[in-house]
């Protein structure tokens, strides 16, 4: 792998940047792999990378129907945090957080992980109770978190309307200072480049059409470019997981909904951190380019169109102007939608399936980006050993039968 550095940039500038290598190869699929990952998004690419790096399994293919990182990885609002309520979630996301903290160096690719702090605003007394509960749990789990009162919030977040004139006055907030944002595309590309360098085949423009089984056991995938054999198959296809499961002959406790987001025109920095409010329903951060990156809620119906309904956008903008009235004259540039795979308890499914040797990693809903390295890491370990990694084990499909749900939205943690 051609190593990246400031010096490298300088050297290449002397040859007018004509000699940069390809970041990854365009290989022809082999007949059979040790592991085939279906889905070349952030999670899938991370899985492939950690399989190669941590488990020495390099005979791996990632099969992607479109382009690398082209699904939700390319469409999210890039927020990273680990301040989840329940132990199972907190441990998983904190595992991811620790990987984020060294990811640029590990991949030799600057993913611009920027720990600008993530604030969750409290507007009601119940918000305060829920926040204390979450922060207190975070602290005892080794996840950083603080509960701020209204005055501290006003001091820390300029231009946030902390007056009593708002519909739901802000009375406090939690902050995770290690939380922040990362550059979404770079995460996919960084994992892709590093995985490729370790020998992983990244096979783009190839759609998986089904799973081939022998005696009920998965032995590979049928693709638009023919059959590819595999000892184990890991499906990491986010919004399309339900569709993939159907091809494999079972159903998932998952519904795919549009999740919308939008950006403003680029403006000079005015929002330094990530600010989220569940009560008024909107969240905002500002990219290094100057765009305000704003998230909206999910649409209530199943949708695969990568777009949702206008009222969701409308309501989100109302929430943003309600929180930051000074932004009223700023303009919205662009909106879009992703397809998020939601589960009944707002927690992912990282699990074996009814089909032996076929594993699924899905159900990340509105919050998958932040888990990318952690999700890939534990899924890789599970695929390598054929047994679920301890951090992944609680996220089995079985919980929807026996009732051991990890109810993150019941616990009022924001899910983004």
């Amino acid at each position, binding site marked *: 792998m051609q190593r990246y550095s400031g010096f490298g940039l300088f050297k290449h500038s002397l040859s007018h940047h004509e000699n940069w290598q390809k970041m990854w190869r365009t290989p022809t699929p082999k007949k059979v792999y040790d592991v085939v990952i279906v889905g070349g998004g952030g999670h899938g690419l991370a899985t492939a990378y950690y399989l190669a790096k941590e488990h020495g399994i390099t005979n791996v293919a990632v099969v992607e129907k479109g382009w690398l990182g082209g699904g939700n990885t390319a469409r999210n609002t890039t927020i990273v945090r680990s301040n989840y309520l329940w132990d199972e979630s907190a441990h998983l996301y904190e595992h991811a957080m620790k990987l984020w903290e060294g990811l640029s160096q590990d991949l030799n690719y600057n993913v611009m992980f920027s720990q600008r702090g993530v604030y969750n605003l409290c507007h009601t007394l119940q918000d305060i109770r829920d926040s204390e509960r979450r922060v207190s749990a975070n602290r005892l789990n080794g996840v950083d978190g603080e509960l701020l009162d209204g005055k501290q919030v006003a001091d820390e977040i300029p231009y946030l309307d902390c007056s009593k004139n708002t519909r739901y006055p802000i009375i406090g907030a939690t902050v995770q200072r290690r939380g922040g944002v990362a550059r979404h595309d770079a995460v996919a590309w960084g994992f892709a480049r590093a995985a490729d360098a370790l020998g992983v085949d990244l096979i783009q423009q190839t759609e998986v059409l089904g799973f081939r089984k022998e005696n009920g056991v998965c032995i590979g995938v049928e693709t638009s470019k023919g059959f590819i054999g595999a000892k184990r198959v890991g499906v990491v296809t986010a919004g*399309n997981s339900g569709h993939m499961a159907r091809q494999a002959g079972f*159903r*998932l406790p998952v519904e*795919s909904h549009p999740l919308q987001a939008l950006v403003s025109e680029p403006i000079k920095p005015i929002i330094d951190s990530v600010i989220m409010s569940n009560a008024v329903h909107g969240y905002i951060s500002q990219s290094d380019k100057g765009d305000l990156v704003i998230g909206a809620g999910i649409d209530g119906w199943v949708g695969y169109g990568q777009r949702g309904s206008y009222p969701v956008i409308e309501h989100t903008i109302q929430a943003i102007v309600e929180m930051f009235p000074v932004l009223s004259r700023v303009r919205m540039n662009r909106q879009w939608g992703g397809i998020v795979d939601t589960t009944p308890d707002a927690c992912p499914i990282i699990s074996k399936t009814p089909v032996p040797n076929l594993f699924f990693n899905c159900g990340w809903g509105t919050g998958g980006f932040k888990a990318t390295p952690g999700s890939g890491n534990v899924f890789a370990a599970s695929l390598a050993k054929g047994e679920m990694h301890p951090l992944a084990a609680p996220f089995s499909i079985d919980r929807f*039968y026996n009732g051991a749900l990890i109810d993150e939205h019941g616990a009022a943690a924001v899910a983004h």
Partner: protein
Amino acid sequence: MLHIFCPHCGELRSEEEFHASGQAHIPRPLDPNACTDKEWGDYMFFRDNPRGLHHELWNHVAGCRQFFNATRNTVTYEILETYLIGTQPQFTEQAASVAPTATREQGEKV
């Protein structure tokens, strides 16, 4: 924003008046106590989630408050029909390939 024909009101109204309530035609098991945990979990949580035609339950919350079903394409978002609870859809995944796309929305007054 979807435009939905409420079969109770007999009018096309904007999505803002409605609430989507998930997959339709999932009857509650008649004897829940006879269900295994697995069967009960299937009933509560597992869904078809199709990429294509979806039969789904809607509630005209800001209108007549009545529930009804709709057949909607989850990729194009076209609504092919809405129909009353207890009745069956005309459009199904099997029939869809032969059924022409409706040139007029149900209830469209032209």
